[in-house]
């Protein structure tokens, strides 16, 4: 498996560290139901047999956290972007 880092280019699996579900966001700690939400966010991750958005860390490269879309049945890589990309899109910072 080779992952296309948006900064470094396509690199071997060995350079990356896997974390998991890229769609969990840290709940608002001030909400009344914060506890349930944190329990959910930390323990209940997406685990589809198919297309999955996941976080990878380019540990041996540029040290970026990446948001990778990959098929867990075939290991086919569908897309990669910086984890910060969505934030930047939302806040228009380059």
């Amino acid at each position, binding site marked *: *498996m080779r992952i296309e880092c948006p900064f470094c280019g396509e690199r*071997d*699996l*060995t350079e990356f*560290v*896997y*974390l*998991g579900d890229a769609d969990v966001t840290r709940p608002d700690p001030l909400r009344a139901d914060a506890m*349930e939400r944190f*329990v959910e966010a*930390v*323990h*209940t*991750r997406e*685990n*589809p*047999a198919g297309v*999955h958005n*996941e976080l990878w860390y380019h540990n041996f490269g540029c040290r970026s956290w990446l948001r990778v879309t*990959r098929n*867990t*049945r*075939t*290991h086919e890589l569908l897309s990669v972007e910086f984890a910060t990309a969505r934030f930047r899109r939302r806040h228009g910072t380059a």
Partner: protein
Amino acid sequence: MPYSFLSLLQHALTGHRRWAPTWRDAAPAPEYDIVIVGGGGHGLATAYYLAKVHGLARVAVLEKGWIGSGNAGRNTTIIRSNYLLAGNNPFYEHSMKLWEGLEQELGYNAMVSQRGVLNLYHSDSQRDAYARRGNAMRMHGVDAELLDAPAVRRMLPFLDFENARFPIQGGLLQRRGGTARHDAVVWGYAHAASKLGVDIVQNCEVTGFVRDGARISGVQTSRGVIRAAKIGMAVAGHTSHVASFAGLRLPIESHVLQAFVSEAIKPLIPGVVTFGAGHFYVSQSDKGGLVFGGDIDGYNSYAQRGNLPMVESVCEEGVSLMPAIGRVRMLRSWGGVMDMTMDGSPIIDRTPIEGLYLNGGWCYGGFKATPASGWCFAHLLARDEPHPVARAYRLDRFATGALLDEKGAGAQPNLH
């Protein structure tokens, strides 16, 4: 006629032309008392004990492929009960006791072989952790010995004691640990369950659940709808996937674990050895192949195959531990889909949905659990209350914080 040397002799006289199928390859009936999803070791054991212990025989095991096609058929066959936590240790010891009588229980030889499991340690803190674990075992009446380096050397003179990057300081030994013939465990439970009237249905994939109101009362399958008062999931690596048919989200990730076998060589390694300075473990199969494995690849996968980097690092560890196997050849590598939980321990519990029961989250350690898992899941299904030794395997422990984290790795499945 039950299997025995005698029956073998008699059949030999008739050229083995009269053997009956080892288990009935049943067609699904429209309805059962209990349906078990998953024809692996756990599903079949559950069905067997439901019939044997609880007298429930209107039971079906539904297997999407052929029985044992999942992890039961691809694991490295290590059995042991060397656990640390009070929530785990009694369960695995119960399993070990069941292993010890399995041949006779099933009338099928699963080749349980208690040649010992030795976990090597390479640092003081590792020794301390093993000591804590070994003491826990002893306090529960489980055999455990803490060996120093010379003792290990007497047992396994061909390990690297001279030139190791992380010198071997000793090991934690459970002599009653060992291996069992994985496929035979599946066939043995199928054989015995089938004899007690359990329907074993192959090529029958569960694709959904039948709901009436809040409860679940059946399954949709590739071979039609099958109704049942209770449905037990024992689908290991596919737990999240099958649970999602019922809208359940679970604290489980599916990861690939690879395993390897070498060409068959004359006996070299007496028991099971695990390397403490990495993730390598090895034993020798009854055919002579070195059966070994290491860490999971580390990413979610349902592909039943891994990648080259893990193959390399497993061999780096193997050759570092045992320089003698450098010229032994790898014959085959494969992968399995592991149901990794957030604390590395299993779940045997009711689900929030009436009629649906869960047995899963076995990570890479569920083969040794097969008998007790079946025993306890059957207990839960039959009595609607957890078996005492499986009390801790609750689904809500992540919310309550009553975790069973043997390694202390936290909510990160690929670190367990």
